[in-house]
């Protein structure tokens, strides 16, 4: 009983052990906060890795491959494949309403099949919503207001089909779905919602116009692409003004800022990858050439979504193997027309993000290692404080020995004291970490607004929000680590206390 009583009495009567508990608190809080943010960052990377690509990608970049419809049919016959969708990936230029040309990655997609394979339908930003976001306490989300000319549902459907009705002709025109940050018009509020800002345009006389543009209603962009000929050389650029059907917000800044989706047929046409007559030179013909068949339309990618859950690291490998088998059959059916099955690139979502995932995994391990090293300070601190306290409490040790306490009993008083400090500091540290991580985004926004400090730059960290989830298993490991560090720090002083001679301890001045 005295082994329990004395540590509690010492803890509440001295400042020094409270300082040790504060050191443990700070260490556990720091380690768990860092682990939660970095671990959450990794989880977000893994979670978002499939948002725009599906589980497996068949890729033949730049030049593309024909008969993709046949490949999609073959893939969708596989019992493990849920759906497949064509895509063209290219770089291009967008002329924006602000007058600023922006280099972007263009992905030509078919809205319907793209939505079946990816999370496209979920990331379209402009859509009907019933209530404000949890953070949007002021209810200032534009989507809660009514539009003048069309409904939010219509805007959402426009996004899904990547088209918008031209009010003059009454016809639906193929268009683009931009990443929410591409246009530079949408400003993000602290509540996490976006609102178009005023655009200023310079006039030739030195004055300027200002207007309030909302891209999905009247926004137009000039798309410029650079088609390649059969030998891979660039030919004349192709430009076209297209309407903006909607904008998406994936939460992954690199996508939201740099990737725009355009309806597949537009991209195919501009890159000369659409179906076209195949001609050969014929001097006998009045035109100098003769049509001998059809060049089938081409795409650079086919995206595949599997039926099971492929979100875990390493899970999508078997699906990639099935896709490779299906492609081999497809290549055999179109000899000489499509890339050889050994050459084609078949990549899982994990392969596509491997550089980033690997870097974050290593960075997480490194940061944890460094902070754990820093946490060793608490071991040394506890050791120093206990060493000093044992000198101060030498006479108490003598008293305990005089009334019959064993050496091990005296040692356990101090080890128990270390455990008490460790448990107290760790519990408070974990609670602090929970509070910080849960509120890390508001705290970060406050730091930015009040002090101009921006720690989490989305241009560096890819995501607009800081991860704010604490894994219970991480908390348990950090808590046990905090308690153990105190216990270890108390061992040497406890051994010293146990070794004291009772008479010399009683006579200690």
């Amino acid at each position, binding site marked *: *009983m005295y082994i329990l*009583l*004395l540590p509690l009495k*010492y803890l509440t009567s001295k400042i020094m052990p409270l300082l040790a508990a504060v050191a443990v608190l700070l260490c556990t809080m720091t380690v768990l906060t860092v682990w939660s943010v970095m671990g959450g960052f990794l989880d977000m990377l893994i979670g978002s890795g499939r948002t725009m690509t599906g589980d497996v990608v068949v890729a033949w970049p730049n030049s593309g491959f024909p008969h993709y419809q046949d490949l999609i049919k073959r893939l969708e016959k596989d019992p493990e494949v849920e759906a497949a969708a064509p895509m063209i990936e290219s770089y291009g230029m967008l002329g924006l309403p602000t007058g600023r040309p922006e280099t972007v990655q263009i992905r030509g997609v078919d809205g319907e099949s793209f939505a079946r394979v990816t999370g496209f339908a979920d990331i379209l930003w402009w859509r009907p919503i019933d209530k404000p976001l949890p953070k949007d306490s002021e209810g200032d989300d534009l989507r809660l207001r009514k539009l003048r000319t069309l409904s939010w549902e219509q805007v959402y459907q426009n996004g899904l089909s990547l088209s918008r009705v031209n009010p003059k002709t009454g016809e639906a025109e193929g268009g683009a779905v931009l990443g929410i940050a591409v246009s530079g018009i949408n400003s993000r509020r602290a509540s996490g919602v976006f609102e178009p800002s005023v655009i200023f345009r310079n006039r030739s006389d030195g004055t300027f116009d200002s207007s309030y543009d909302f891209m999905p209603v009247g926004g137009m962009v000039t798309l410029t692409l650079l088609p390649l000929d059969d030998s891979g050389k660039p030919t004349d650029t192709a430009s076209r003004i297209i309407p903006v059907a909607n904008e998406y917000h994936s939460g992954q800044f690199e996508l939201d800022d740099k990737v725009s989706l355009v309806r597949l047929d537009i991209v195919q046409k501009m890159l000369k990858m659409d179906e076209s007559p195949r001609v050969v030179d014929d001097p006998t013909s009045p035109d100098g050439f003769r049509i001998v068949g059809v060049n089938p339309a081409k795409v650079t990618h086919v995206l595949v979504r599997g039926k099971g859950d492929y979100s875990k690291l390493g899970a999508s490998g078997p699906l990639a193997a099935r896709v490779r088998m299906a492609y081999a059959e497809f290549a055999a059916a179109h000899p000489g027309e499509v890339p050889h099955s050994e050459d084609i690139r078949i990549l899982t979502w994990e392969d596509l993000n491997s550089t980033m995932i690997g870097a974050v995994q290593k960075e997480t391990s490194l940061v944890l290692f460094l902070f754990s090293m820093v946490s060793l300070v608490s071991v040394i601190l506890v050791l120093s404080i206990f060493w000093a306290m044992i000198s101060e409490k030498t*006479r108490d040790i003598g008293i305990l*020995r005089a*009334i*019959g306490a064993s050496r091990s009993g005296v040692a356990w008083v101090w080890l128990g004291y270390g455990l008490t400090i460790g448990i107290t500091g760790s519990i408070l540290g974990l609670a602090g970490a929970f509070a910080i991580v849960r509120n890390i985004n508001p705290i970060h926004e406050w730091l930015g607004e009040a002090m101009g400090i921006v720690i989490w730059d989305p241009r560096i960290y890819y995501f607009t929000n800081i991860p704010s989830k604490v894994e219970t298993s991480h908390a348990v490991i950090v808590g046990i680590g905090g308690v153990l560090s105190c216990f270890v720090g108390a061992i040497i002083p406890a051994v010293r206390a146990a070794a004291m001679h009772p008479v010399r301890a*009683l006579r200690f001045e």
Partner: protein
Amino acid sequence: MAMVEVRNLKKTYKLGRVGVPVLRGVNFECAEGECVAILGASGSGKSTLLHLIGGLDRPDKDGGSIVVEGKDLTRMSAGAMDDYRSGRVGFVFQFYHLLPELTVLENVLIAPMVHQGLGYTGARHEIRKRALNTLETLGLGHRLRHKPAELSGGERQRVAIGRALINQPRLFLADEPTGNLDRETGQKILDAIMEFRRRSSQTMIIVTHDDATAARADRVVRIRDGVLES
């Protein structure tokens, strides 16, 4: 048979490289229920003798024997010596030696906590009752929740007596119990000790340099330069 039998007891302390003999072959006996005062000047070795009888220290190698109730302390293991100190001996020191973080009641209860180990939990109600009775008898019933720093010297020594007696030891050892108190308070402390002795017939050895204190014992032995005078 004597309760305590000390034969040819020798103890040397080391000061740097020099050995300083403190006890030079002490022979001493104390019968069961007897109260013996060991009277001597400062540095005569009387406290060392008490520490050795109380199992707080060990004599020199081949430095004689201390037999208490038929058991030789010099042959006891460290664990057995701990049990001896906690269960069979009650110590009172000149400077009280109370634990400053504990209350009066806790300072008394710490002794049975050490003695009973895990068994304390089951017996805690009975022990607490006994501690309250002891403190009441010592006139400290109104000071139970006070810390030692809030008590007078006499009150502190009474708490120390309560702690020494709570386990009902067979042997009560007091090292200058009145040495830090004024004469009147010292007399009251001795009265309290004698009252307990009257009730429980404990064997007592009191070390003192004060003739008046020694006079309260059944028998007085004098120690000078580490040797007992008859």
